[in-house]
């Protein structure tokens, strides 16, 4: 008996460790008032960990939106529960089970990364929990038939096509070299880029590295000996930063381009300012309007970053559903599917698979040791 009590207490303590902030319990007014007051939205993603900076941007966006809503509707408090997966699919899977078993959670913003989305999608879909991801871009996620899964960001097919266009049209590359990091995101994005490059790309000019790898000497040698004039790296900033540093140290003078996984200031500190200069980082997210940035900073305390506007818009869609009186998961899901409007991240409408219909890919340039987040070029 005592062992059972100890194990139960340990189980409760462990489940509490996975979440933070909880909501207060004000009851909703009935009739025409907003629904789901006193309930929670959940965030599942990398709040800490190697790519934790991106998750913090998303959490900030959600908190900013909730703060605005609470100010406008003081009787109706919606809380946020943060589930930190560190971007790791194995950590995300039990957290997804926790989320669907929590009756106070009525919507999910996330999962943050593609790998964790693929790992948790079935659980979330089986429970019918509506979700909007601000950042998971792998193409296959919306091909699984998960009717409750949506994303507010262009997928890798769109990003890959735009990146290939940039390489051929703007950078005028004759010999592109494509490197991926073996992750679901990296492989997917690299495949899109290679496909979109078509005949401009020679299939021997490729390599696959590993996440966590720090010495890229064989890959660097391969790039140099192939005579490539542009390198596209599909992966995250820890590897991207070290790769560009080692390429430049070995004397590579061509263009270095990477996708949204590298679009973070830590890319520059990892590569060193002189190696990072000139790098082009693409992202399916444009810069936030200046007013958003100042208001965000006043509420959240730190600067907005990549995916903050997506997370903000995702939260607002849920809040709009609650305001319209939708309280059941099915109603909220239908509301999301039919939603059209203009968010801080751009025009929003979802197709029948959960993808966003209109998306623009932006090219961010690193110059003078800084990532210019305010003036990217849209790739048309």
């Amino acid at each position, binding site marked *: 008996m005592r062992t059972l009590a100890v194990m139960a207490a340990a189980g409760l303590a462990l489940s509490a460790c996975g979440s933070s902030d909880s909501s207060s319990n004000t009851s909703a007014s009935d009739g025409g008032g907003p629904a789901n007051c006193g309930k929670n939205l959940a965030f599942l993603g990398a709040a800490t*960990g190697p790519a934790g900076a991106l998750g913090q941007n998303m959490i900030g966006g959600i908190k900013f939106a909730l703060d605005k809503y609470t100010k406008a509707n003081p009787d109706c408090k919606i809380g946020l529960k943060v589930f930190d997966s560190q971007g790791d699919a194995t950590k995300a899977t039990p957290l997804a089970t926790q989320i669907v078993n929590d009756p106070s959670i009525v919507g999910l913003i996330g999962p943050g990364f593609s790998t964790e989305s693929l790992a948790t999608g079935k659980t979330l879909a089986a429970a019918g929990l509506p979700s909007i991801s601000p950042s998971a871009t792998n193409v296959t996620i919306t091909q699984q038939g998960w009717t409750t899964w949506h994303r507010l960001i262009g997928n890798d097919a769109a990003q890959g096509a735009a990146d290939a266009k940039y390489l051929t049209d703007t950078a005028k590359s004759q010999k592109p070299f494509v490197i991926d990091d073996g992750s679901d995101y990296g492989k997917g994005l690299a495949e899109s880029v290679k496909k979109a490059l078509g005949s401009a790309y020679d299939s021997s000019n490729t*390599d696959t590295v590993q996440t966590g790898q*720090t*010495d890229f*000497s064989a*890959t660097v040698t391969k790039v140099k000996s192939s005579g490539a004039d542009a390198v596209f790296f599909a992966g995250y900033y820890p590897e991207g*930063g*070290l790769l560009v540093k080692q390429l430049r140290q070995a004397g590579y003078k061509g263009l270095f381009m990477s996708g949204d996984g590298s679009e973070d200031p830590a890319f520059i500190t*990892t590569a060193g*300012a002189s190696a990072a200069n000139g790098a082009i980082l693409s992202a399916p997210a444009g810069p936030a309007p200046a007013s958003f940035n100042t208001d965000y900073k006043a509420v959240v305390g730190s600067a907005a970053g990549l995916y903050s506007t997506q997370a903000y818009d995702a939260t607002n869609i849920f809040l709009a559903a609650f305001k319209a009186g939708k309280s059941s998961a099915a109603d909220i899901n239908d509301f999301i599917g039919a939603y059209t409007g203009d968010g801080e991240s751009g025009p929003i409408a979802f197709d029948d698979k959960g993808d966003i219909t209109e998306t623009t890919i932006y090219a961010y340039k690193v110059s003078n040791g800084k990532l210019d987040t305010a003036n990217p070029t849209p790739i048309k």
Partner: protein
Amino acid sequence: MDFAFLFNNFAELTITGLALGAIYGLVALGYTMVYGVLQLINFAHSEVFMFGTFAVAWVVVFVHGTGQASQGLGSTLGLLALCLVAAMLTSAAIALLIERVAYRPLIRKGAPKLVILISAIGASFALAEAMGLRDRIVGWFGLDDNLTNYVGQARNVYSSPITIDPHQVFKIANYHVTDVDLLVIGAALVMMVALDTFVTRTRLGRGIRSVAQDPEAAALMGVNSTRVIQATFLIGGLMAGAAATLYMIKIGTTRQDAGFILGVKAFTAAVMGGIGNLRGALLGGLVLGVVENWGSAVFGTQWKDVVAFVLLILILLLRPSGILGESLGKARA
């Protein structure tokens, strides 16, 4: 399978492989010494290395500040010497801490080797996580605002603000050998020769070899086994600190789990060269570094670990005691 690429770039792949392999070798020395003396695989040695890399980065941030800079090796020598001392002291301190807390009580009680092994794994995780939670730990003392440059974003990659710019020294085949390559390979050789001399010529070294050969007879001969074990861990720590400095010169970034992958590779190198054999550890490291690069060149980088571990299995099948075979404690004629 791209053999043409391997042959056309043989010099470059081999020399860069040797440079990485030298770092594996220096870390492998720690594993091999502890195994030779205690027949114990010190899994926490990877964290001894990791703490050394952070010591280097912290010294650079402390002396230089967080502004990004790119300097050649020559102009950074003074700072690097300071980093080397700091890394060696930090790694040695962590190694002695592990010995005192995780191993000595168990060895004193005569615990089974498996129990000591599990204690080693636990120490490894505890240290790596402590580094990953350093912002919280510093927060307990209320110092986290003053120390944000050192403990902020504790689980993210941590870079040294000064990037060492390699300069080309001379040319072999069509590859320009850089000063960083020469420094790393040269330093590893020097360290290994120094360690070898220490173990064969000095009194403490003789003590280490005697405890490796037969702890009871050594005790009867008046060798203080506690001191010898401490010295073994200390030396392993010093070598790991040197490896950490060279790693930071070459790579420049670290993370709280940076030790893990490198530790596995270094341990593999130690086994490949002959566990318990000092020269074998360095040789195993160099072989592993070169084979990883050759394997990447022929099959693609995603196969590099497969190639390295298949080679390990083949070596052990043909020669179970590793390439150089003999162990620390064997009497030499």
